[in-house]
């Protein structure tokens, strides 16, 4: 038994665990607005963990990255999503395709797979917080699960963004940050993507009278 981990590593591990916890909470969440709040909370935890890594390693671009996370994922995107939900008068329920307990069980299975995949790899890393790689992979997979088991377009988008959170966690905690230019590019893509999706919501609602992607089953191979 060793508890010789330095404090910052313990903090990063804790934040990573909280992010995983929030990913599960999102999977279990039935109300759209609360789902968005959970996403914002996840973003905030990601911001904290990035900040800890930045303080520890003293890499300047990580401060930028943390700031971007705070701005985009905690403030801007949740705000946009909240506005969309209100403007489009989306009904509060999330409407899963598979019932939620089953989804959670599948989720646990995914976490086990992710941990197993990441374990041999993370042991090769020289960073102390290498365990977070498995958590990041699990978050990505859980977000993916959320995307394929929910009917509403907006939950799919939240799942997509949460997936991005998992990827950022991998990038910051496990490798102490990608090169600056790459992180900027990724952030830009996410932002533009979210805006395009926002525009899309209005068009989808105009055309289908609903944001339920259940209606979008016309295109099939017959």
């Amino acid at each position, binding site marked *: 038994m060793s508890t010789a981990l330095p404090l910052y590593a313990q903090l990063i591990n804790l934040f990573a665990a909280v992010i995983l916890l929030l990913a599960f909470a999102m999977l279990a969440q039935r109300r759209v607005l609360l789902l968005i709040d959970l996403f914002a909370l996840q973003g905030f935890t990601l911001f904290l963990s990035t900040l800890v890594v930045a303080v520890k390693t003293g890499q300047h671009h990580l401060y930028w990255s943390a700031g971007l996370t705070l701005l985009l994922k905690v403030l801007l995107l949740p705000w946009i999503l909240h506005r969309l939900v209100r403007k489009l008068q989306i009904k509060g329920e999330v409407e899963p395709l598979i019932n939620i307990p089953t989804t959670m069980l599948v989720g646990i299975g995914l976490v086990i797979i992710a941990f197993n995949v990441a374990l041999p790899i993370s042991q*090769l890393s020289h960073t102390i917080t290498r365990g977070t790689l498995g958590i990041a992979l699990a978050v990505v997979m859980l977000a993916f699960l959320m995307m394929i088991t929910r009917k509403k377009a907006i939950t799919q988008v939240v799942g997509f963004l949460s997936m991005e959170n998992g990827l950022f966690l991998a990038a910051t905690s496990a490798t102490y940050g990608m090169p600056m230019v790459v992180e900027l*590019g990724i952030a830009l893509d996410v932002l533009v993507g979210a805006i395009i999706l926002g525009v899309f919501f209005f*068009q989808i609602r105009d*055309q289908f009278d609903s944001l339920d992607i259940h209606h*979008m089953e*016309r295109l099939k191979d017959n």
Partner: protein
Amino acid sequence: MLDMFVVMLAIPLVSGALLTVFGERAWAPNLNIIASGGTFLAAALLTVEIVTHGPRFAFGEQFFIDSLNIFFVTLTAFVGLTTSIFSGPYMKNEAAHGRLTIPRLRLYKSMYQLFMFTMLTALTTNNLGILWVAMEAATLTTVLLVSLYRTPASLEAAWKYFILCGVGIAQALFGTILLYFAAERVLGETGNALLWTYLVNAKAFLDPNIMALSFIFLLVGYGTKVGLAPLHNWLPDAHAEGPTPVSAVLSGLLLNVALYAILRCKVLADGAIDGNFAGNLMMGFGLFTLLLAAFFLSRQKDVKRMFAYSSIEHMGLITFAFGMGGAVANFAGLLHMTMHSLTKSAIFFAVGHATQKTGTQMMEDIRGLIRINPLIGWGLMLGTLAILGMPPFGVFASEFMILTHAMKYHPWATPVLLLALGVAFAAIFGKVQPMVFGETEAKRLPHAPAITPVFLHLAIVLMLGLYIPPYLTRWFQEAARMLG
């Protein structure tokens, strides 16, 4: 002296911005064509420079042009040019039919140029992170292009495209992060750990376990964009519901660029992992895709959907070829990529005009193209024959090379290949033949279609089938050698 590389990237970026602002002016369609022409000219001059002086960097070490990607750059710029020529009258006809408004046309042109910019960036960047960013940006621009008609079907197609490719590209990002994770241990925590030129020198020292996992994620991720099964679902929808020029560039360019990304990563994975791990994976995915697409072909009713499945099929074949590896198979793969790009975009040009004339994409309602417009009819017929691998077209040469190579080194795959190609042949030919011949009463279009690109492409395909110029062979060989 003017740096042709900078010019090549600047033209689509600047003209894309200009078209966003001035896209509703009367001269805008011409600007689109002129910009594409300028890009192609710059790319051609850059090619000459690379061929004579060898590989070079640009913008520090962030961009790198060697004989592998310059080949894709030229192809991209060329198809970009011909598609812009084709789309001039095509889009005017769409507007005349009331399917598109003026602001939509502006969106189309600006997104088209930005799409070209992202493609060229993805091809020339040395930084695997920027490669990812450019691929994602390409997705975003094409999502807007696919949803251009704003019909329920096109929105559905664009949504599916966005979500599937978004998921796929997220996997690719995870793969990239893992790659960085592996590289950082060798190259240190510098900004160089994602630069391909550094990675390729250090590839033997990268950890094989991490690289294996990383390559799986990269293959699945970028493979989604290539259209590899089972994540190919977006491709037929996006091709069928977007405007035809977009279908042409999706099939002709985007799939190639995604495959190029996989090839770059394969080189690194091969260097790190013993045995043909990456190649076997690619062969498996390729064969599965090929077979699946071939059987879906016969069930199609929509002409653009059918040719989209044909693109999936060919991408599977190409992936298989690169999976086999070695100088001959790589050569054949590169050749087949070229041939497929040119032929498939030519087919989409012809199909675009045909569907405009008949006002439908349903194959059973399209009849007698040869009577309405013999050039379109013959264009479609010849293009179909070419894509099906009939001699003397170039597709025959590359498919022949792939098949013989497979027979020699992977005989188990031969029956599958032959079966898939046979099924595809029967399905496509049986459906195109009555479309070209037969009775019809279609009307004239308000704007004369642009036939030149169709026959220009087909002529090149025919020429390359009969005779590949020696400098082109050398160039292909060099690129094939780089792939290992």
